[in-house]
């Protein structure tokens, strides 16, 4: 795999960083990331992963862009209202960097579709908005031995960590063995 001249120019400030360089940039180009959620977290996550040149990005979300999303889900603009979020985010990412591939999965992540998706990607990034999806994602990432970069927010507080049991790290269940009872759920 090589970079073309446009890519070399585009990523030149990366290529001159010793921590990235040509080999790092090619690692990015060869890599694939599956993002769960194309909303508040998924917008900046996808836009940056695309801009830096992650070669293949998968997007999972089944929601459509609503007017009330626009003030924080910055990949979606007023004209995207009513469109599937995965399509709107894909278009924004590709507008920023047409050299990469963005694959959209306009589905709800379920027990019977999660594993076939996870095996296609190197890294899973969870920005979902409910506990069911978070435990499903954790377990499926564990069974498919993929690192899970997890972020969640509530009001003005955020939590970020990487679950990587295959390298000796904890998983989501090590951190929180159970979700809150329904009545206590801070959505």
């Amino acid at each position, binding site marked *: 795999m090589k970079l073309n001249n446009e890519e070399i120019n585009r990523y030149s400030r990366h290529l001159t960083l010793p*921590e*990235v360089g040509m080999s*790092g940039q090619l*690692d*990015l180009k060869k*890599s694939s*990331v599956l993002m769960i959620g194309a909303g*508040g*977290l*998924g*917008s*900046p*996550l996808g836009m*940056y*992963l695309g801009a*830096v040149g*992650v070669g293949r990005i998968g997007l999972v979300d089944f929601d459509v862009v609503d007017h009330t999303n626009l003030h*924080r*889900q910055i990949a979606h603009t007023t004209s995207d209202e009513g469109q599937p979020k995965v399509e709107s985010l894909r278009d924004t990412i590709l507008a920023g960097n047409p050299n990469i591939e963005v694959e959209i999965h306009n589905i709800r992540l379920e*027990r019977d579709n999660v*594993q076939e998706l996870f095996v296609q990607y*190197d*890294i899973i*990034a969870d*920005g979902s908005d409910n506990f*069911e999806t978070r*435990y*499903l994602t*954790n*377990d*499926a990432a*564990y069974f498919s031995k993929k690192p899970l*970069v997890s*972020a969640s*927010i509530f*009001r*003005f*507080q*955020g*939590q*970020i*960590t*990487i*679950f*990587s*049991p295959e*390298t*000796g*790290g*904890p*998983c989501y*269940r*090590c*951190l929180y*063995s159970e*979700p*809150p*009872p*329904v*009545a206590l759920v801070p959505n």
Partner: protein
Amino acid sequence: MLPGVVGLIQATEVIKLILDEGAPLIGRLLLYDAMKMNFKEVRVRKDPECVLCGDNPSVTELIDYKAFCDIPIPGAEVPEKIDEAAYELSPQEFKDAMDQDPSAVLIDVRENYEWEICKIDGAQLLPLSSFDPATSGLDPEDSVYLYCYKGKRSMQALKELKKAGFKNLKNLSGGIDLWAEEVDSDMPQY
């Protein structure tokens, strides 16, 4: 603004994993507080008793996550089952019934910040978070018309009032959100 900051940290960690550079956020939970504007870090350990990745796992394949996440509060009172449909009125029915009912009292059980966005004329605010029929000032003889944003919280309040002996209770089906669509087109939706 918050999701922007958190999503970018998430992106940074993904990129570091791909490049195999730096100290990844493994075994550490980063806590960000936008109001205090601080970051804290706490340690996360692998739990040897973890049912998934521990020494004797009991979760060896994907499970029913809906059932797993449907945890009731032990010991909590189970809300009384009532025929909810019998109390529901569409926005237009709700308005007509109130207009014809001289003893109608209109109660909004949303929170104060929602009340500040919009409200139905003549309503009185009694937020569900502190709702108590005994101290509500309401009379069990009143006809109480309840609403919230979508109609679920007001149904909870309705059940509490019913338990407290109120007989004439009505719930605005679809809440103030549907009211804005069907009765008052000047009202903002949020």
